[in-house]
């Protein structure tokens, strides 16, 4: 644990002084922040990271490399075998497919929303796919994932069928939550997706509880092989919330098998992270509680994957929690209702150029892991999956009146005893949903 307190080298984001949002002339930049190394950092993301691990050194065994650096490396070393690469062809195709699914699904959501098929608050994940895929692709089915309202892609990555998610968004009975949860409450017992939460921060204690269960099973129930890990996803805004800090404390205190993943997309609706946070370097807050804190380029799925391997491995071995800050970006507004007027077009363009899907595609092709045709085939397959999901959701029925009172209580005796002495739930009108409760 001592290394958690030593200086941790972070992977610096791409030079910040090239992005106009952070320059002193722009109104969103806070001049009080000039002394922070996070802002206006002159440290460049350089190829020395090939040799030196650029994040918590005890956390990784292999150096994390930039996609572009690997490409450079490849060109220099034409005799290198495929084993130098960060993933195999099969893994690459799987990862690519997962990210394409996330992107295509969310794009379809936008279309469906504007066509009046889904309503309310819908928060899309475009641009952040590397984080979801990077982590969840490495998990087992028994591991748990907890998310926020931006949860469609986490559910999909974890294995919830696209049909079930789309139906849920359409509010149909065939949805993963019978249409009762909606966009912000994706749950799956089968795939261990523990939600889907509307209030930021409220999912983190739930994730901590799932990790606690895992430890309890191993140590109290003596299920020696129980090594389930929980991954909690949340944003930069959440990192100023009490529940975040309280759970970092408890997770480190009891060495819970959990990974806290911060999807720092720099914006909480219209509130810039830099305007809301005294020290915007979130990864630093991990060591303050006694766990490693790592910053990683969240637009690069290979880098995220390497960090995720270490963090998940740590948790699985019983070594405790980790805090991983993924620098990422959402290409769309906070939700489909957000006009997204505050973000600088230059900032958006900067991150659009770092689209994780484009980057992976380039990597796979340049390293001969796949060719254009294979990747196109995947894209076509996913298009069909998403189309099918929409058709399925469209054709599914809306919930009937009888569904209204179901699931309020696991044990419907909780509705109490009626004037006639019988439990309310025994009233035949109860199932019709017309009973007075």
């Amino acid at each position, binding site marked *: 644990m001592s290394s958690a307190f030593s200086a941790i080298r972070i992977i610096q984001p791409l030079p910040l002084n090239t992005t106009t949002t952070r320059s002193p002339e722009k109104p969103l930049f806070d001049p009080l922040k000039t002394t922070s190394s996070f802002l206006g950092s002159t440290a460049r993301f350089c190829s020395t990271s090939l040799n030196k691990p650029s994040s918590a050194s005890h956390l990784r065994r292999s150096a994390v490399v930039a996609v572009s650096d690997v490409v450079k490396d490849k060109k220099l070393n034409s005799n290198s075998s495929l084993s130098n690469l960060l993933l195999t062809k099969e893994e690459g195709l799987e990862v690519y497919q997962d990210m394409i699914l996330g992107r295509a699904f969310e794009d379809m959501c936008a279309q469906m929303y504007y066509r009046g098929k889904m309503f309310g608050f819908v928060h899309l994940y475009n641009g952040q796919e590397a984080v979801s895929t990077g982590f969840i692709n490495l998990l087992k089915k028994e591991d748990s994932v907890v998310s926020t309202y931006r949860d469609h892609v986490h559910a999909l990555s974890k294995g919830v069928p696209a049909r079930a998610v789309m139906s849920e968004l359409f509010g149909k009975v065939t949805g993963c939550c019978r249409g009762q949860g909606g966009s912000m409450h994706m749950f799956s017992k089968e795939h261990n997706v523990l939600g889907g939460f509307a209030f930021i921060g409220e999912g983190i204690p*739930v994730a901590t509880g799932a990790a606690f269960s895992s430890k309890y099973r191993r140590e109290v129930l003596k299920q020696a092989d129980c090594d389930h890990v929980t991954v909690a996803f949340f944003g930069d805004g959440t990192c100023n919330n009490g529940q975040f800090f309280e759970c970092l404390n408890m997770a480190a205190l009891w060495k819970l098998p959990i990974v806290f993943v911060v999807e720092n997309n720099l914006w909480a609706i219209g509130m810039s992270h830099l305007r809301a946070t005294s020290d915007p370097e979130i990864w630093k807050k991990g060591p303050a509680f006694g766990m490693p804190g790592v910053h990683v380029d969240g637009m690069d799925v290979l880098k995220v994957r390497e960090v995720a391997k270490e963090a998940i491995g740590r948790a699985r071995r019983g070594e405790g929690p980790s805090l991983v800050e993924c620098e990422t970006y959402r290409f769309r507004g906070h939700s489909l209702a957000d006009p997204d007027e505050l973000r600088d077009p230059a900032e958006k363009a900067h991150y659009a150029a770092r689209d994780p899907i484009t980057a992976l595609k380039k990597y796979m092709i340049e390293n001969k892991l796949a060719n254009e045709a294979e990747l196109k085939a995947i894209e076509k397959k996913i298009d069909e999956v998403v189309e099918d999901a929409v058709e399925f959701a469209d054709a599914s029925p809306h919930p009937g009146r009888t569904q209204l009172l179901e699931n309020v209580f696991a044990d419907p005796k909780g509705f109490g005893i009626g004037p006639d002495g019988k439990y309310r739930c025994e009233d035949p009108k109860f199932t019709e949903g017309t009973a007075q409760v």
Partner: protein
Amino acid sequence: MLLHELLLFEALQEGLEEEMERDPRVCVMGEDVGHYGGSYKVTKGLATKYGDLRVLDTPIAENSFTGMAIGAAMTGLRPIVEGMNMGFLLLAFNQISNNCGMLHYTSGGQFTIPVVIRGPGGVGRQLGAEHSQRLESYFQSIPGIQMVACSTPYNAKGLMKAAIRSENPVILFEHVLLYNLKERIPDEEYVLSLEEAEMVRPGEHVTILTYSRMRYHVMQAAKTLVNKGYDPEVIDIRSLKPFDLHTIGNSVKKTHRVLIVEECMRTGGIGASLTAAISENFHDYLDSPIVCLSSQDVPTPYAGTLEEWTVVQPAQIVAAVEQLCR
């Protein structure tokens, strides 16, 4: 029937321990529940017996450890969360409302939350405003939870066991001043119903509905009333949500007069909801409007005299019955 004598806090502990023995998934979480044995000794000795993970001393972070209990419940454990004082659970309102109450529904029934949230509440002896709160009135609207209040060693043990065995999230309200009540309870195992009210004293003239500590003020008033020739029927409603409309209804149909005596504040308390429920369901059987005696809508004062005037006293109950039965 073999009986043994104990105090209310011991009865709670007995119920808790029996359930922990019976099911290894039952665990306790809260501040000072472990090594300290609980601020009111309900968990005394349990950490030594079951270990620090099963009787978990938490940091002072109510919202987070309540949420943690919920996450643990979703993944197969059966946690009991102790609020050192129920008032502290105001910090956990986010988790209790959104996750405890709602998750079973929003997940389409996939996840159950078999948590028990318990702790001492109510007006004590000059504990000051913040330590004298009645959270049952704040929590009652949350859909998906059940609320019960214990008042005797017998029902404390029975309700504790029932709450732990229930698949629903249950909030068990104990009272700071009742922990040292003594009673002889059965040796044989028993579990009470979470949804049923308790007939304390059958009668003919008036139905007095009460719960928790006010039961004792009512019984004290009942002595005076009997001497004056009245015959009150006293029911301890026990189940604050949902109400046992059968027991209550049968009583109303018999006496035609209802007096509610509660410790909640006048505004928005359990009494207010009970008044509405009785009006709706049994209006035809009432000979006079329902009278509800509640605490004053004031933050509980520290000064002893003021505190006494905040809560309902037996003399007021006697006067109200006399008024009702005129």
